[in-house]
């Protein structure tokens, strides 16, 4: 028996999440872990910064702020201040395709937290005020100023390289200005259409009494009535996705030079196989670039789920005072030859090594309630309902036959010619003070 084959024995019984749906459509996922000192609650709505009503992009982010400020009929900041007083940790995050409200609290606060979450889901529409809106518009503007800059511009450039100009998945360049345009009526409309039990998933992981919690959820969330209006359609994949994709050389002008390339993987068709495919791709490109180690500071892959596909971005960051020009030619060649290199990616024990890397990554989340609850919530949103234990089991049994189609799909189309946007400055780092 190999070490990987022993995994289910070592992890205990292969558990899966317990789930049920209330009559109003709310989906609930429970993951009781009696040995924890905390419990994590995640409420997820499948509308993110790429969704929302026409002409009102960025509304989901603003709404996330507003319902954090005032959870339904609970007083302004009262919920977050209470959670802070009891040692809780909480956040709201707006992703391209969904929005999460996350909280980690002592088990004794679970029902209070669920009460707040129910308020946020069912009673925010009429609670938001014009003052709240004005102040949160300003705060979101401050946040966007911090998050703007070259990194975000480059991300936008990459998406523009292979999506139609009108695609909602491309972040707006004018996000900050657009946020200021939203009215109270827009916010209420959004809450009416999207913050409703039949458009939400509630995931709980950690120390709690599953039976009592199920009853409590049924009692307080079951009282919410889903609006009669149909749910707005989710933002889907773009029809042009099967077409050619562009390569980009990108650059962070303030610091270091970089090279980058994007691919798309089909989504909702095997989280584990997709992860393994992108790991193998990353490892292959790293081998191709090995002769240039002295010029490369870092190689990174980033990915983001956008509807029914996933964007994988591979970036090479140059070292200070080193030109990336000699690297660029080899990088472009390695990318052009990728479709013929798939066999090489599986040579020897390369798949096993990729499995090990992925396994360790998931292992580190196993004992963390917040990560477990987030996996449950986002998994349900993405129609991938595996628990961590099941993910680890699937890694163990993954074969070349499972992973290869992912790579073939991503690498099958002809890349567009490389476009260069690189311009670099020398990087200086010593500081000397001058009194003025």
């Amino acid at each position, binding site marked *: 028996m190999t*070490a*990987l084959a*022993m*995994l289910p024995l*070592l992890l*205990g019984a292969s558990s899966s999440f317990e789930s049920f749906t209330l009559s109003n459509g709310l989906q609930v996922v429970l993951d009781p872990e009696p*040995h924890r*000192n*905390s419990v994590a609650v995640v409420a997820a709505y499948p509308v993110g910064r790429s969704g929302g009503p*026409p002409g*009102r992009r960025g509304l989901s982010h603003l709404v996330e702020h507003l319902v954090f*400020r005032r959870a339904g009929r609970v007083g*302004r900041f009262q919920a*977050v201040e209470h959670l*802070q007083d009891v*040692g809780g940790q909480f956040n709201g995050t707006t992703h391209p395709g969904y929005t999460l409200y996350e909280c980690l609290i*002592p088990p*004794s606060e*679970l*029902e209070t937290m*669920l009460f707040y979450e129910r308020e946020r889901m069912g009673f925010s529409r009429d609670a938001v005020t014009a003052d709240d809106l004005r*102040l949160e*518009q*300003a*705060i979101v503007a401050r946040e966007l100023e*911090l998050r703007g800059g070259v990194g975000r511009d480059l991300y*936008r*450039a990459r998406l*523009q390289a292979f999506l139609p*100009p009108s695609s909602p998945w491309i972040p*707006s360049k*004018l996000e900050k200005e*657009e946020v200021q345009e939203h009215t109270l009526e827009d916010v*209420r*409309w959004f809450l*009416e259409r999207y913050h409703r039990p039949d458009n939400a998933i509630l995931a709980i992981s950690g120390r709690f009494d599953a039976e009592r919690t199920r009853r409590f959820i049924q009692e*307080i969330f079951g009282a919410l*009535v889903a609006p*009669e*209006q149909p749910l707005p359609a989710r933002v889907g994949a773009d029809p042009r996705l099967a077409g050619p994709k562009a390569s980009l050389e990108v650059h962070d002008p303030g*610091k270091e030079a970089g090279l980058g390339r994007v691919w798309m993987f089909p989504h909702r068709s095997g989280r584990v196989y997709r992860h393994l495919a992108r790991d193998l791709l990353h490892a292959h490109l790293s081998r191709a670039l090995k002769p240039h180690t*002295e010029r490369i*500071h870092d190689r990174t892959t980033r990915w983001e789920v956008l509807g029914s596909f996933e964007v994988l971005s591979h970036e090479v*960051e140059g070292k*200070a005072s080193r030109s990336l020009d000699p690297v660029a030619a080899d990088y472009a060649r390695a990318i052009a030859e990728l479709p013929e290199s798939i066999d090489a990616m599986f040579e020897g024990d390369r798949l096993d*090594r990729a499995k090990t890397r992925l396994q*360790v990554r998931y292992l*580190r989340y*196993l*004992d963390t309630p917040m990560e477990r609850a987030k996996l449950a919530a986002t998994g349900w949103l993405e129609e991938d309902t595996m628990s961590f234990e099941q993910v680890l089991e699937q890694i163990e049994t993954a074969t070349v036959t499972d992973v290869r189609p992912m790579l073939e799909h991503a690498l099958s189309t002809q890349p567009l010619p490389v476009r260069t*946007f*690189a*311009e670099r400055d020398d*990087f200086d*780092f*010593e*500081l*000397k*003070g001058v*009194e003025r």
Partner: protein
Amino acid sequence: MKTRAALAMLLLSGCAGLEARPPLEPLAARPASGQPEPTPGPIAPPELVKADLSTDHREGSYDVVRAIRPGNRYVSVSFTFPKHASPKVQRVTGLLLHLAYQRLDAALPAGARALSFDRGTGVQLGFVTLPSKVEACFEALAELLKDPSPAFEDYTTKRRDFLQDLVSSSWSTLGLNLVRMGRFGAEHRWAEGAATQVRAIAKVREARARERWDRLFDLSRGTLVMAGGPGHLPPLEQIRSTLPAPGASSTEEAPEKLEVPPARTDGGMRFHALWFDDEQVRVQAYHVGPAPTHPDYPAFRAIAQLLDGGFRGEGNRSLRHEKGATYGVGSEFSVGRDFSELLWGGPIQPEQALELMLVHEEMTTRLRIGEVSQAEVDSALASLRTQRATRLEDPESLVQKLADCASAGVPTTYEACLAPEADGVSKDDVVRVARTYLEPINLEWLFMGEMGTIKSRLQFMGTLIFYKREKAE
């Protein structure tokens, strides 16, 4: 500039103006549920599930701390060594840890990953793995600590790569380097930035690096910390036989003691600034505090918690919630072997930067004149204690916290990890310690970002020091 212009054109294409805003359908009347409002039921606070900690201490050897927590599914192991007293060893610590990490990661079996951390209190080298792999992984770690030769293979290339990485990434630590330089003076070793390290490392040949490895990774200075579920960790006898103790070490130098807070004599306010194009300015107040072993430490930690305040904090209340001038204000607290550091502030619109400074002045004055209640102190510390209990769940967090405790010289107990400062800190302690460490004369201000609006006002108030980047060579 040609390429920048091309990039700008690409970025702007398709987003020349705000999108059209078609009218929305009218809102429907909200349906009433017709059911009574339920209220949350009380849940009794459950008993804390603690890690079962055992510490094995032997004279002339390394300590072993094992934390076994019911239900945990993986294993984390770290050998931690306190910051070395010698500046020569300190300057090359990053390189030595880099060599150690690379070798360990290559030597670990499948199903494991090496981890290394350079913390304020010391360095940590270890791994996370499956329970079935702990023994094989520990053998790999033990082999490296017994014979580091493989880590030094192709030393010159590894050193060159490390130096280039150091230069490439040093910008991220700019803020802290900058205030430390202001606080301690650029010549002080606590304030040494990347440039000094680069020069020191560039000169260190392999034989000298080996000698410094032996001093840094001297087992008799270290503590082995392990965490996992029941039945996951090897017995002590096996640990000691796999990595025998080398006997007492006599090479440790007496640590240099830092006077805290270091005396300032000029008496005026000092502002350290780095000016670059931005829409906001990051304003931070920098305080130096006592080391974790110092009697004043618990009260200083309580002060950090009180100043932070989170969503309730005065900075967030008056400038975020009421004015939308900042995305958030808070504090960062970090612990070193000989002192601790408290940074308070955040990014803000330049027009409100002075208001943020006034909020800090008001908050610290309140503490210094005793306008704080015991209930406020108790509440802040109870919150801190609960935060720790809910976060010390997984093996990696437990090992990290215990390793920090070991390197800082505080007891490696679960209670010590939680928040020993939560017990027995009185309002009077807080006021006394605030008068020592929060005096304006012991304060440095850091500004990074858009300085145009506030430059002249700061010059009117005190000494403004602008920093500029210069080449290392």
